[in-house]
């Protein structure tokens, strides 16, 4: 009786150690991803170093589903640059091109007007009520590089959250049932 009890104990303890190892490995993966993301935020100087193009307002240059790499340096904002900005009150950042710049002599502050390449009019309709210009603090970064099509994964996961839950569920299952 004592011998059986010992065996059961040893099996159960093995299982627990196994499961704990799995959880720790998963935790390591998640934290390394977070480290890479935060590291990218530091290197590029931008709050979100990679954005996905969500609308067709910059076609044919940037299509829906493309990924843009952003960089924010202290250089002044100049006409022609593609900037990503947040409008007060809207949470989704917008990626458009700067068409007008007015930079003050004394303070160096700028007034900026943007427009999507594929839009007919400028972005004043998108700005907050009564706002005519963007200032530097609205701008999150300049687009310096791009990769086509890679952003569709994010778009699908945002627009059909079922897929996100399915993926996480499948990953969880894999973790639990794998033997390593």
């Amino acid at each position, binding site marked *: 009786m004592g011998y059986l009890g010992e065996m059961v104990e040893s099996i159960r303890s093995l299982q627990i150690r196994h499961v704990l190892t799995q959880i720790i490995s998963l935790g390591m993966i998640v934290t390394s991803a977070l480290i890479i993301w935060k590291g990218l935020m530091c290197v590029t100087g931008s709050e979100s170093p990679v954005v996905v193009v969500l609308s067709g307002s910059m076609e044919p240059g940037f299509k829906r589903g493309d990924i843009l790499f952003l960089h924010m340096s202290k250089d002044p904002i100049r*006409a*022609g640059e593609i900037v990503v900005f947040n409008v007060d009150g809207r949470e989704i950042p917008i990626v458009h091109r700067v068409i*007008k710049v*007015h*930079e003050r002599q004394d303070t*160096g502050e700028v007034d900026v007007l943007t427009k999507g390449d594929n839009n007919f009019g400028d972005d004043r309709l998108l700005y907050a009520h009564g706002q005519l210009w963007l200032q530097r603090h609205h701008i999150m970064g300049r687009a*310096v590089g*791009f*990769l086509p099509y890679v952003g569709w994964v994010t778009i699908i996961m945002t627009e059909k959250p079922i897929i996100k839950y399915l993926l996480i569920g499948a990953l969880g299952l894999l973790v639990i049932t794998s033997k390593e």
Partner: protein
Amino acid sequence: MHSFGYRANAVVTLAVTILAMMCSMASLSDNFNVPSPTAEVKVLNINWFQKQANGNDEVSLTVNISADLSSLFTWNTKQVFVFVAAEYETPQNALNQVSLWDGIIPSKDHAKFWIHTTNKYRLIDQGSNLRGKEFNLTLHWHVMPKTGKTFADKIVMTGYRLPEEYR
């Protein structure tokens, strides 16, 4: 070791790595291209020049833009975005850049072009400093690649001047 899962994992990882390498090599190859574009902008007419009700000057002009940007195109180029901006200084603003016209060149065949147009975007000052103002016209281009890094540069043409009086 030979299950479907492991094999799929290995194949997908290899595919993604190779794709990433190809994209960065394509982008790096763009650095070997030495562009030599030419451009000329003539101001044909000042259509009107008024002070608006809110005190800001506005001017409307007709320009003739001719340029040859074919040396900017490489095999990794998707399109070239070109625009002409008026740049000038005022006592209040160290720099004012106002885009007057922009266009997209989708391929090398369209890169040598000539266009006669009024300004697409309104040239409005912050204030009324434009009478007799000297300004530069800059032709900027942004090369948008199929993958990778965007390149941008400009040609500055000086010597333009707005009329002394409203008309």
